[in-house]
């Protein structure tokens, strides 16, 4: 290492090498809202690695035009945890016919469960869904005269996320509404793999502007820099 050089534990790999770290039957978070901010490049590598199967996917939705939907169509997702699946007829059908398990949670509960999962907080009370069908098997409790539902935070073995840029330490920034669930999932997984459009030199990202400090990142993959 050269004098003045900085090295963090973040690795810079190809998508293929990165996804080879995903164990079979993993619980895996996938960033994005609709297709915006979804790590399509990493998902393509997961599709290509047929040893990865039996996944539990935590993602807001499974967009019909996303590689995540292709993965589902290949029958490699056994369970999905998220807020919205109505737009895919195939997902709804698979659920009704018992081919895939689905756990529906409100989008705000999902986002907070991810952030708190990454923060060492195992459970929290939320007013969302109190008194509704989604809370029927959950504990509830009254604080200051209002009913709240006890929700468990979410963690996973793997997070596949998308960011705009990474620096060579692994710090991340996002772009516009593609930020969404990505920084939260980065915090909540044992192994966080991020796909970025560009890797920049240390010092190019303003320290005030970094959204995901490298401490939450394990592997960075630059889009379009693979031999594929």
């Amino acid at each position, binding site marked *: 290492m050269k004098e003045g050089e900085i090295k963090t534990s973040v690795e810079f790999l190809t998508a293929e090498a990165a996804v080879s770290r995903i164990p079979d039957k993993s619980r895996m978070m996938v960033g994005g809202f609709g297709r915006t901010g979804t790590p399509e490049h990493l998902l393509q590598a997961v599709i290509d690695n047929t040893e990865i199967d039996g996944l539990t996917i935590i993602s807001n939705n499974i967009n019909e035009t996303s590689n995540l939907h292709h993965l589902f169509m290949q029958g490699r997702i056994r369970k999905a945890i998220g807020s919205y699946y109505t737009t895919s007829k195939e997902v709804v059908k698979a659920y009704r016919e018992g081919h895939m398990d689905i756990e529906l949670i409100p989008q705000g509960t999902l986002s907070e469960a991810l952030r708190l999962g990454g923060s060492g907080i195992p459970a929290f009370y939320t*007013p969302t869904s109190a008194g*509704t069908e989604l809370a029927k098997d959950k504990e509830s409790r009254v604080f200051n005269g209002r009913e709240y539902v006890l929700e468990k935070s979410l963690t996973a073995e793997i997070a596949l996320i998308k960011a705009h840029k990474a620096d060579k330490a692994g710090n991340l920034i996002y*772009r516009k*509404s593609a930020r969404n669930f990505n920084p939260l999932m980065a915090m909540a997984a044992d192994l966080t793999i991020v796909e970025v459009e560009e890797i920049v030199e240390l010092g190019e990202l303003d320290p005030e502007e970094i959204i995901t400090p490298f401490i939450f990142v394990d592997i960075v993959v630059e889009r379009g820099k693979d031999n594929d």
Partner: protein
Amino acid sequence: MTDLNIKRYIAWRSAQELQAGVVNLGIGIPTLVADYLPRGLVTIHSENGILGVGPSPVSGEEDADLVNAGKAPVTILPHSSFFDSSLSFAMMRGGHIDATVIGALQVAENGDIASWAIPGKDVLGVGGAMDLVVGAKRVIVATTHLTPKGEAKILSRCTYPLTAKKRVDTIITEYAVFKIRQGKLYLVEKVEEISFDELKKITEASYKIAEDFKSVVRESAIDNLKGEILN
């Protein structure tokens, strides 16, 4: 009156409730509300992480990284900001959003709302609706008075799975405006194009006439909208 004109009237009437502050607009009729908001005074929040949603981009200038909660391309304004979903829902659940305008399948006279699932139908999503309804300071339901099949939507009790209990503040349809006050339903506005008796027939819920009730002429409002609608 065309379907589009009905929807636009409901949207325009909903916008009259919103003269300043931050609002989150649901899918469907509520999306049209944006066209009638006072420009520069009402800021639109989108739950996927934007405060200050601007108009649709001109064709060819869409940005795949800049969409609203309905996944449609949008633009931003000079006071806009981006944030993650956790902060976005903190704004909603934490009571920081002044109002939301949303659609509904059913609304009950006590303010219960059902908007995400129909028993027996292939609906498998709740999205951000529950957070929006529990958190917004004011919940305005903008909906046609009846379902496409002619069934009542304003009921004594919801029969579909609830989105939230007792959270609706105002109901706006093409015929009337209702408010829920102290857990009871009041008719605050009726269009002259419908009689009290006819309104009662298509409204299953019990309601009283509010002290501040007024009657309005819908056609004249729609006429005034025409220019905007045709724009």
